[in-house]
């Protein structure tokens, strides 16, 4: 069982960008490299091998300017703050080390080679993880059921985007049960819940401005949904 995060991290909401206007054109690069500079690859390697630094709540708590500064920029910021918060690194030692590398552009990070650890890291990249959980009850919805996405008001981390909250959809598929990643106000361990693929028609999400013949299918945990219509009494929030 995982402990829930305690809500000490404030979520800015900048990350929840589905349908938000004003971000301009998509700009694909031709022959894009995997990493645009060496530091991007190094920070990727650090973040994926040192546990406990980066988390989605930490990414989501960055200021909008920080979040929008770039993908690996925001990884780096969230990662170092996570490490500092957990006492893995000191803020002063990190600043001092940064200054050291600024003063000596030829200096390179301390090197340590350890094949056994590298092998474990290598295995980790290919390890198949089982993220399914035993559900505590049967799924509440079947494929074809009409539902409404509830409003999420706890203010913490959630996987229910704002653009579907309050909107009507239809269950497209019933998936297995998975851990609910939401923050919750009482630090309780939420039991695993069934996940669903829910279909929302473009016109339901965007009204008259929707493009014809478009729909969004989105994965939603059971507690994000309430039953809708067809004679079923609507549940109210307890």
């Amino acid at each position, binding site marked *: 069982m995982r402990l829930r995060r305690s809500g000490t991290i404030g979520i800015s909401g900048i*990350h*929840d*960008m*589905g349908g938000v*206007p004003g*971000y301009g054109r*998509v*700009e694909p*690069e031709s022959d*894009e490299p*995997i*990493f*645009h*500079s060496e*530091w991007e*690859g*190094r*920070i990727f*390697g*650090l973040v994926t*091998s040192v546990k406990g630094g980066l988390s989605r709540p930490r*990414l989501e708590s960055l200021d909008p300017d920080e979040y929008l500064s770039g*993908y690996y920029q925001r990884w*780096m910021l969230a*990662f*170092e703050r996570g490490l500092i918060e957990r006492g*893995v690194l000191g803020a002063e030692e*990190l600043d001092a*080390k*940064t200054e050291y*590398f*600024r003063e000596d*552009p030829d200096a390179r*990070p*301390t*090197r*340590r*080679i*350890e094949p056994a650890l*590298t092998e474990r*890291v*290598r295995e*980790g*990249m290919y390890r*198949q993880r089982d*993220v399914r959980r035993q559900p505590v009850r049967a799924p509440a919805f079947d494929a074809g059921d009409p539902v409404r996405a509830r409003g999420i008001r706890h203010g913490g981390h959630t996987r229910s*985007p704002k*653009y579907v909250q309050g909107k009507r959809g239809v269950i497209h598929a019933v998936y297995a049960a998975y851990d609910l990643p939401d923050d919750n106000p009482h630090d309780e361990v939420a039991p695993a819940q069934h*996940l669903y693929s829910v279909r929302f028609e473009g016109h339901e*999400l965007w009204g008259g401005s929707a*493009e*014809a*013949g*478009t*729909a*969004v*299918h*989105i*994965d939603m*945990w059971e507690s994000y949904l309430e039953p809708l219509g067809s004679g079923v009494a609507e549940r109210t929030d307890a």
Partner: protein
Amino acid sequence: MSGDHDHGHDHFPEPEPYEALRTRALESLLVEKGLVTTDAIDEIVRTYEQDIGPMNGAKVVARAWVDSDYKRRLLENGTEAIAELGFGGAEGAEIVVLESTPQVHNVIVCTLCSCYPWPVLGLPPAWYKDAAYRSRVVREPRAVLREFGLTVDESKEIRIWDSTASLRYMVLPERPAGTGDVPEQKLAELVTRDSMIGVGLARSRSEIA
């Protein structure tokens, strides 16, 4: 960007960007504290630059195009069928494969983050992680696809899959016309990264030598 990385002794070298210095500091401290090793980081970078990328997904797609039993297994349980070809791991605990057809064109996105099926597609391109794509493709997918040079007929449904949870999606694009006699290995060359995201189609056979 000038692309001029020739820092000769005649002129001042460009100062290193802050991110490069900060990353060196982080790596140095984490190595000194025994939490990571230099060669582990080297190996992760090398793996995602060379071994884990869209060439893996292309093999999956080509197999599905030539083997209808494999295609059925792939659509029923993507993770297991993809493992048959030896692919799996980080960000691939559950992979669902979406078949695009003459009636439905599938596109993947992660509006909240940048979730992406690493074992089959590698690391996502920058635009997939940026705000323009994440904000717009759920709202005006036809306009966004046109910016990629792809016009989808009005009669065809566009279905956007927002990967918000534990599953990762990839698209099985339509097989290009006139490729009935093309062998599987050659077919894989027609399968682009963008066609498995849904912002492009597989190439036609005239586009490869």
